[in-house]
């Protein structure tokens, strides 16, 4: 019983983390039809930048609680710098190309960013840590549930995921910007003909997506050692999440995150040797039954 509870809680925490990363990926795909492999690098950039920002914060001897603000700032800075640079500097020349070609472009970008990170931050593992070993991860203390103790930081993760989901759903369904975005998703050309600035929509979407990846990275940084190559691991699992849910679908990303989170937590608790196997097995199984993921719209066949 306790183990079942542990699976549920671990699964949900992991799902929140996955959702934060995957939602940016699915948003970018939904609007721009780009399956962005470089999303993993943006995640890593967020993590590395937050190490730099928090170290500077701690080095000045400011109160440790402020390190959370530094994490948030790191994510925003990465999003606002890397997003526009990549979209304006590279992607905008490639709109309208084959989806697979665009995957390869982002793969090239992934390779470039991986080395850029090595050049800037070196290859040694880094930690988000103050001079007395205080970390944002432990700062909030612990909470107990059903005899199990977890760092309260995990609640922050769950909170961020839920707020992100609610805000995005609200923006898409209830605001003018969201409705314009949906018009662009449905038919880019018609939307452009009706006077919607498609270029601007793409720009904003990519920047937002990049920022979400960086938020994921910044929130992960205090919980792990920040190493090069962390982006490569994350991107495949984020792919699994969005593919299970249906590429481009917001509720799909949420459901995919919960499924992958629970499957992974269950396999870690009951059959640890099947951890990776289980996640991708579920992905393959879902694709076999629903070739375009769980939440996918029917497509018009074009001759």
């Amino acid at each position, binding site marked *: 019983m306790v183990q079942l509870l542990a699976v549920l809680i671990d699964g949900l925490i992991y799902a929140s983390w996955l959702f934060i990363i995957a939602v940016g990926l699915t948003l970018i795909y939904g609007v721009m039809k780009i*399956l962005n492999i470089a999303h993993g690098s943006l995640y890593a950039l967020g993590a590395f930048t937050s190490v730099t920002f928090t170290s500077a914060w701690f080095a000045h001897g400011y109160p440790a609680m402020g390190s959370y603000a530094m994490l948030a700032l790191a994510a925003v800075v990465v999003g606002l710098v890397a997003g526009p640079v990549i979209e304006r500097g*590279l992607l905008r*020349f*490639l709109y309208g190309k084959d*989806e*697979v*070609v665009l*995957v*390869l*472009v982002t*793969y*090239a*970008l*992934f*390779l*470039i960013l*991986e*080395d*850029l990170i*090595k*050049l800037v931050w070196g*290859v040694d593992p880094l930690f988000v840590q103050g001079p007395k070993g205080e970390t944002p991860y432990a700062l909030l203390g612990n909470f107990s549930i059903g005899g199990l103790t977890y760092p309260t930081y995990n609640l922050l993760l769950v909170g961020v995921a839920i707020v992100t989901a609610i805000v995005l759903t609200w923006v898409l369904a209830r605001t003018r910007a969201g409705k314009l975005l949906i018009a662009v998703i449905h038919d880019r050309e018609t939307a452009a003909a009706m006077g919607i600035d498609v270029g601007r929509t793409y720009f904003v979407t990519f920047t937002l997506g990049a920022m979400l990846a960086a938020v994921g990275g910044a929130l992960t940084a205090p919980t792990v050692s920040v190493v090069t190559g962390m982006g*490569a691991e994350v991107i*495949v699992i984020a*792919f*699994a999440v969005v*593919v299970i849910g249906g*590429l481009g679908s917001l509720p799909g990303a949420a459901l995919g995150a919960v499924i992958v989170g629970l499957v992974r937590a269950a396999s870690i608790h009951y059959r*640890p*040797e*099947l*951890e*990776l*196997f*289980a*996640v*991708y*097995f579920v*992905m*393959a199984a879902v*694709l*076999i039954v629903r*070739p*375009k993921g769980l939440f996918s719209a029917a497509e018009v*066949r074009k*001759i």
Partner: protein
Amino acid sequence: MKLDRTTLTIAAVTVVLLVAGPLLPAWMMSLIKISLCYGIVVLGMLVLMRTGLVSFGHGLYYCLGAYAAAAHDKLANSLAEVGDASGWALLRGILRLPKMLVDALTGVFGPYDIAVMLVFSVVVTGLTAWILGFLLRKYREIFFAMLSLAFSMILYGSLVKSSALGSTDGFNIAARSVFGATLEDDSLRQTIFVSIVAVTMLSAWLVNLYLRTHRGRLAEAIRDNELRVEYMGASVRRTIHVNYIISAVLAGLGGALMAINIGHIDPEMAYWTTSGEFVFIGILAGTGSVLAPFLGALIFETIRSFAYEYSPNTWQMALGITMLLVILFLPGGLWSLFRKMRGKAA
């Protein structure tokens, strides 16, 4: 049959490699060997890319081929154990077959015979691709890429946790003979080189023949418009399935040759970044000719080994930039440069 230009080029390349190979310095030899092993995998990608499909999981067959070659005795033994444990006579009999085959071949040729290893890799990758093909042939574009990726990550995930096969470290293997003739030191090195050249060039020649057959030519029609191909009475799924199996077997051979060549295998061969490298070389080379993948692999390996030598932290960046430039300015790959030059000369 009239000898075409590609056949002559393949023959010429084979002769040059076999004659000049032993005279080259060791580092160049190893560069060529690795490029040939990578090249044959990418040749598989080319067969698939002609139908318009890009697999982001070809590491699956590359890795599977290597493990089938290196661990065929272990795999056969564990299958037999599963059969024995099941208690069903029929299942037990079927699952003992691979072990009987391994024992019989080992009896004739001795353990770790290069020819036997290659045969196992072809059988295992071919069978796997035949089964997965029924599924994958229904998928296109990004969904094909993603489902292939999932399968390769399943293999990666299983191998990483399988202590019998060395987990993340993999294990070492050493080929000992070819067709029963025992080999040592120099003769072993040379035989490995000759086997790699022979297998890769023979495959290139066969693929070249295949691409000229009726079914081979269908591939490009499918890439352009598969609905029209169906209307004309040809089966798109069947063609894709056949190409998929060919592609997988070639990737498996590449993995097996690489295992024999460097004497070590690990699960990293199935990781998505390895598959990404194959896609990379495929795009770099273009689908213009069966020799393009080998040229692409040679360029890739050269960039990698030199960049790695002089600046270990920026070699991926060099590759990434090269790839962007090729996609932006040479959509047909490097091979299209040759076409252009030839076009101007004519």
